[in-house]
């Protein structure tokens, strides 16, 4: 995923540089509240300007230091990009797509079922498929129900 740390650092450096410039400009152009006759040293944009300047310096140093890095010497942790993207898709799909669009318990049940089923299905040595589906469905129903009841009646939360 982040195969080359040098490239990653360079891209991050550029993004941070833009962020720093945006913060500096944002602080400089921020309303100085002259109409309220505040002390000029207490303008709201003062600290954002300082942070923007500091970020510009740090990002330039990051870009500079990424040039001298020896990629052979950097150990990068390896993981499954497929698992990561499926997890992100399921989690965001649940939080943005399901929650609020249907009863919370149902949305949570669907999410837990799909998440657990997908990763159990792909895991090696899983039990027979039909048993797995039944177990996962029961698991999802029990936990989605329990979490919903706990928050609704235990913590008196109006569920989304």
């Amino acid at each position: 995923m982040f195969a080359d740390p040098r490239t990653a650092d360079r891209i991050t450096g550029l993004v941070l540089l833009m962020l720093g410039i945006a913060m500096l400009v944002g602080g400089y152009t921020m309303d100085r509240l002259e109409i309220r006759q505040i002390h000029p040293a207490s303008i709201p944009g003062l600290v954002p300007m300082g942070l923007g300047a500091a970020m510009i310096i740090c990002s330039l140093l990051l870009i500079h230091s990424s040039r001298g890095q020896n990629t052979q010497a950097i150990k990068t942790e390896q993981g499954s990009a497929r698992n990561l993207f499926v997890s992100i898709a399921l989690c965001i799909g649940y939080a943005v797509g399901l929650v609020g669009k249907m009863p919370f318990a149902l949305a949570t049940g669907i999410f837990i079922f799909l998440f657990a089923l997908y990763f159990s299905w792909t895991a090696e040595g899983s039990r027979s498929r039909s048993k797995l589906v039944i177990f996962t469905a029961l698991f999802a129903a029990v936990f989605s129900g329990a979490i919903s009841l706990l928050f609704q009646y235990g913590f008196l939360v109006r569920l989304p």
Partner: protein
Amino acid sequence: MQALQSLADALLGFLTPMSLFHVLWASLLGIFVGSLPGLTATMGVALLTTLTYTLDRDAAILVLICMYVGAIYGGSRSAILLNIPGTPASAATSLDGFPLAQKGQAANAMALATAGSALGTLVGIVLLVMLAPPLAEIALDFGSFEFFWLALFGIVISGQLTGGGSVLKGYIAGLLGLMVAMIGSEGIHAHVRFNLGMSDLNGGIALIPAMVGAFGFAEVLTVMWRPKGEMVEAKGESTRALPRMIDLWRYKFTIIRSGIIGTIVGIIPGVGEDIGAWSSYAAAKKLSREPELYGKGSTEGLTAAETGNSAVVPGALIPALTLAVPGSAPAAVLIAALFIHGIRPGPMIMIEQPDFIYNIAAMLILATLAIALFGLSLTRVFIKILKVPRELLMPIVFTLCVIGPYALTQRVFDIWVMLFFGLAGFVLRRMNYPMAPLVLGIILGTLLDKSLRRGLTLSNGDLSPFFTRPISATFALIIGASILLSIPAVRRTLLRLLPGRRQAHAQEES
């Protein structure tokens, strides 16, 4: 004597069936959270903050403290059995714990870890009771100038010590946290900054959704991304879960030293349990009679690491309570929780609520007793817990990450904040940006901003009081020196100038 009396009163106050019930379930849950790779102490405390806001003040804080202590201790289980630290705090534990488990001494290793954690927390509690009141008194002399430097000091030191190989990344993480804190209505003129046209951002980014995202959702992604851990099958394992007293007596100095080192590391802002464990481990190795055993199954190394990381917990609470500057990431969440429950941590705490520090010490003692009890009695149960498949656990954790922040404010916007910080936290962590300075930046940003502008208003725009007042000048010197020393070229030049180091440095370079 007065302190002891106050502590005894506080302890007696918690000896009610309901309080003890809270201690037991929260410590057990904490050990459970800590022992499962992917569930960290910060995440546990953040999620539990959202679940305990309906409890009364003391019960809620008691639950959070027990979760914190339990989770830091619980991390040792997976470090010993899986070679995967349950929390980053237990990374040093796995160096010797796992080899011990491979040799068939898993039960002994877990028993030693339990004893080390309990004793480390106790050393930290003693120092908390001794140091917090005088520190709060000193902090009463702090004005805007000193608070500005204190906030900056926290971020700079945290950035340096948690940045690992790159101090620059530590600084960048701190700056990002400070930038997040600039969003929303500022504290002096109530002017709304950087709300990007979204009225939901007018109040700023709340710490709890951000922390639940950065430590909860990001961990869910990390766990699913990483390959699965394999558990060591215990061979010829004894069922004995009690540590040998002779081992503890043999390591008495290691335990006391690691406890003190851990507490001091805890006091340093934003430098958490992992650094406490590594520092204690390094010191123990240096002074050990058997340094060659370290990394190959040294019981002394294991004890030092576990004592060190647990002692950080009370240590981290010292600045959190007296200065409102968190000593670690979970302590940052605790500060947010204190505010939710109407407690204002800071120098005034010893005046407004003088007994509160003793209440916290009593809570820590109860949590320590609970982890000792569970740790020594439920060894086999926790081995079973480690076998809970990640594909069943993680969707439940994520569901709590969604509903937890929402429960606090009933705003769907906070779910989005959690998602944003989760994704950003995952990416930043994969690129070796430490999370502690980021958290510290979010929590200290307001203090830094208000203190600088208030100080400048008081001095009519004159910067000199920031450098001439004694405490300010000391902070400024330390910050300046530590930033300068973090620049490799400056460090190299200084090393060359030191006569004793010259030769060693020359050898290093060759």
